[in-house]
Structure formats: structure tokens, C-alpha cells
């Protein structure tokens, strides 16, 4: 079969796809007159393709988007390169506009422009649905978890710490608490994604108390070296949130290092206290340091360690929302140091 024949066959084969895709496909001439448009335009904008063929594409665009899109179209025709993706609004048959992400490609003779416009409303809708689902599920998990954690605490308070059953209940309680932290993470995540503020209740807090609580959660797994400057001033933070962040950092340190974990609080300057969580784990490659705080990032050494990849992402958001910072420095082969800084209460 000659090459031309094969090409013709492919083009013929491609025809049906034109009307199959849910995205809006348009063929324009060099002046922007619509030469062809697929059936997707009907569910998306309420027009029939016949109504628009022969009319100007520029009239379909939202007036505010015309200048930007025209500039991009000129660039496409002059360079012969495909366009960047632009966000634009197209007019509905009946009132209003709809948002799309569009891109275009010119024909080799620059007489035609092929455009594809992907519905953004559907994407935004899907993202919102995902967030609501996540928030809903996490929300509904809170009540049963509260019951498990609470009842385990009662059993422990009444039980004999030397007994086998006490040890079992203690494990149930600790596992349920770690599940609760995870649920809290998902709730935080869904709020961050929805651009809604995190719930914070800052007040003056003695960081050494929070450190003691967090170390208490992990003491059965690892030895700790805890230190603090004498006369450390209180910091302004939501104590539950600081506990959440330090628990996240310490649980990471415990996951990746066999050696003792150091937790040290010091005064950085007049207005700032810093808390370091230091491990002797494998450390983090320089290239990975930046990615570490991205959502759903799992460290290269994570292997089969459980984790959602949200912990550090949320921890940083939680600390930054309270005028602090969360940073890391690391030497591969020697370990990592995560540093939280927070403003002192008087600052």
C-alpha cells in the first residue's frame, strides 16, 4: 500500500472520533471562520454544529478573552507551532458562557487551525466532588474512632498495666489514635484543596509540654533524646496542631531510623523558638528536598512503609498558617533534621 493510501485510510478512520469525543473540536480557516465543529458543542454549549459553521469563532468567544486568544492564534499561524493551553470562555446558546482549556495547531499550509477545547466546569465539578467525598468520609470516621480511642482509654485507666490484656488494649488505642491523625490529615487536605482556611486556635503554649506528649506516643518504639533551653518563652500556636505536626515529624524519624531520635527546642532569637527533630536515617538527596513537602510525595526510601504522602505537605501548611516555618536539612548517609520555627507569644 502506498504511503498516501495509508494516510488516507487513517484520516478516514479518524473521522468517527471527531464526533465521539466529549471535547469540543473545531476547524477554523485562517480568518477564524468555523469550517467544521463536532457534535460535542450541543451538550456543552447548546448549539447545533450547523448553526455555527460559517460563522466567526471570535464571536463565540467571551469579549474579554478575544485579545489574548487572537495573539496566541497569530503566533500559531506565524510559527506553525501548536499553541499553549489557554483558558477561555465560549458563549452558550442560551445565556452565559462556559470555561474551557483550549489549544490549537495549524495545518502545514497555515490555511487551517485545528482547536480542541476541554470543558473546565466538569473538571472543577469533579474536583469538588472528590473533596466533598473525602471530607464526608473522614468526617463520618471521626465518631467511631472517638469511641474506640475513648473506650480504650477507660479500659487502660481501670486495667492492670502488667497484664496481657492491658497491652492489647494499649495497642488498639495507639493504632486508633494513629488512624485518627490520618483522618484529620484528610480533612485538612480537603480544606486546603477547597481553598478554605484550616481551623486553628492559637494560644501561648509551652513547647516542652507538647514535646513530652509527642515523645510519650512513640517511646515504646524508640529511645529519645529530648532537650530544651532553660527559660524557653511560650510560643503562639494551636497546641493540638503543634502536636499533630511534631507527631508527624517524629513518626517519620522513627520510620526511617533505627537510632535514637533527638527532639530539641531552642530559642532562635528574641521573637522565635525553633524545634528540631533529628534522626540518623538514610537522609534525603539534595534533589528530593524540595519535593518532600509536595502533596502525595513519598520519599525514595519509603519502600513499603505506610503513608499517604500528605503528612509533610499538611504539616508545612499548618505551621505556615501560624506564621512559622517548617524546613529540612539533610546529609545523605547521616540523617535529617526537620526544623519548626514559631513566633514567641509576646512577639
Amino acid at each position, binding site marked *: 500500500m502506498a504511503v498516501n493510501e495509508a494516510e488516507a485510510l487513517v484520516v478516514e478512520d479518524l473521522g468517527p472520533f471527531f464526533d465521539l469525543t466529549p471535547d469540543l473540536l473545531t476547524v477554523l480557516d485562517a480568518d477564524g471562520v468555523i469550517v467544521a465543529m463536532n457534535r460535542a458543542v450541543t451538550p456543552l454549549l447548546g448549539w447545533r454544529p450547523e448553526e455555527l459553521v460559517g460563522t466567526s469563532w471570535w464571536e463565540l468567544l467571551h469579549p474579554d478573552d478575544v485579545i489574548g486568544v487572537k495573539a496566541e492564534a497569530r503566533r500559531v499561524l506565524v510559527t506553525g507551532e501548536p499553541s499553549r493551553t489557554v483558558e477561555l470562555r465560549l458563549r452558550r446558546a442560551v445565556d452565559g458562557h462556559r470555561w474551557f482549556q483550549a489549544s490549537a495547531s495549524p495545518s502545514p499550509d497555515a490555511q487551517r487551525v485545528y482547536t480542541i477545547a476541554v470543558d473546565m466546569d466538569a473538571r472543577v465539578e469533579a474536583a469538588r466532588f472528590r473533596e466533598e467525598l473525602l471530607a464526608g468520609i473522614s468526617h*463520618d470516621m471521626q465518631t467511631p*474512632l*472517638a469511641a474506640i*480511642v475513648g473506650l480504650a482509654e477507660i479500659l487502660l485507666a481501670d486495667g492492670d498495666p502488667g497484664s496481657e490484656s492491658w497491652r492489647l488494649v494499649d495497642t488498639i488505642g495507639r493504632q486508633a489514635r494513629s488512624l485518627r491523625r490520618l483522618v*484529620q490529615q484528610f*480533612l485538612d487536605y480537603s480544606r486546603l484543596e477547597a481553598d478554605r482556611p484550616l*481551623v486553628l486556635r492559637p494560644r501561648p503554649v509551652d513547647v516542652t509540654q507538647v514535646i513530652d506528649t509527642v515523645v510519650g506516643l512513640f517511646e515504646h518504639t524508640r529511645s529519645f533524646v529530648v532537650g530544651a533551653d532553660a527559660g524557653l518563652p511560650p510560643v503562639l500556636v494551636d497546641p493540638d496542631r503543634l502536636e499533630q505536626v511534631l507527631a508527624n515529624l517524629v513518626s517519620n524519624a522513627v520510620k526511617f531510623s533505627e537510632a535514637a531520635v533527638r527532639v530539641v527546642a531552642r530559642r532562635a532569637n528574641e521573637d522565635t523558638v525553633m524545634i528540631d527533630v533529628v534522626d540518623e536515617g538514610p537522609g534525603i538527596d539534595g534533589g528530593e528536598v524540595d519535593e518532600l513537602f509536595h502533596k502525595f510525595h513519598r520519599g525514595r526510601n519509603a519502600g513499603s512503609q505506610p503513608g499517604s504522602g500528605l503528612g509533610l505537605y499538611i504539616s508545612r501548611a499548618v505551621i505556615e498558617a501560624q506564621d512559622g516555618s517548617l524546613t529540612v536539612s539533610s546529609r545523605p548517609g547521616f540523617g535529617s533534621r526537620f526544623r519548626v520555627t514559631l513566633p514567641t507569644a509576646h512577639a
Partner: protein
Amino acid sequence: MTRHVLVVDDEPDMRFLARRYLERAGWSVEEATSGEEALERCRARRYDAIVLDQRMTGMTGIETAGQLRELGIDRPVALFSAYLDPEVEQEAQALGLRTIAKADVAVLVTVLDEV
């Protein structure tokens, strides 16, 4: 003197949990399964404190607290919420309620001791 608290929650297990915690701390506990029932009980007798769950079938905790205030019942109210939205938090503050994250039953005792 024994202090009396009314625990309002539509979840039997959560009422049981709150009861166990509060009884250990020396409170005498009564239960209501809805905001509507809570209003009835509060009309009938005086409590030293009231614990409301925010999300219940029927009236929410905030709605119940609002009606309690309208009835002139100014007893301290603690509001349990699975996740404390700033929106819920604001409404709660306006009504003078103490809010408690639902995950933290142990805090309940501390909060009620302060009232």
C-alpha cells in the same frame, strides 16, 4: 454537691462514652437523644451543664443551643463537633458555647470542670 449534666447525642455509643468519662469525674449524667428531647428535659429541670453534639438528626447542636438561650436557659453548653469548621466555631462563639473536637472526649471533662 453532685453536679448534673445533660448529654445530648443521637449516637448511643457516644452517649455511653461521654457518660463513662463524666461519671468517672463525679458528674451525674442524664441523656437525651435529640435536640428536641433536650429542650423538653431542660424545661423540666435544671442542669449544671449541657453537652451537645453538633451533627444530629433533627436539630443541630447550634440550633438547640440557640433555642435554649431563647428559653432563658443560660447554663454552660459544650458543643461536640467532628470537625470544627470556622463557620461552626463562629456561630458557637456568638452563642457563648465551648467547642470540643469530637475526637477528643477526654477534653470534655476538663472543659466542664472549668465551667
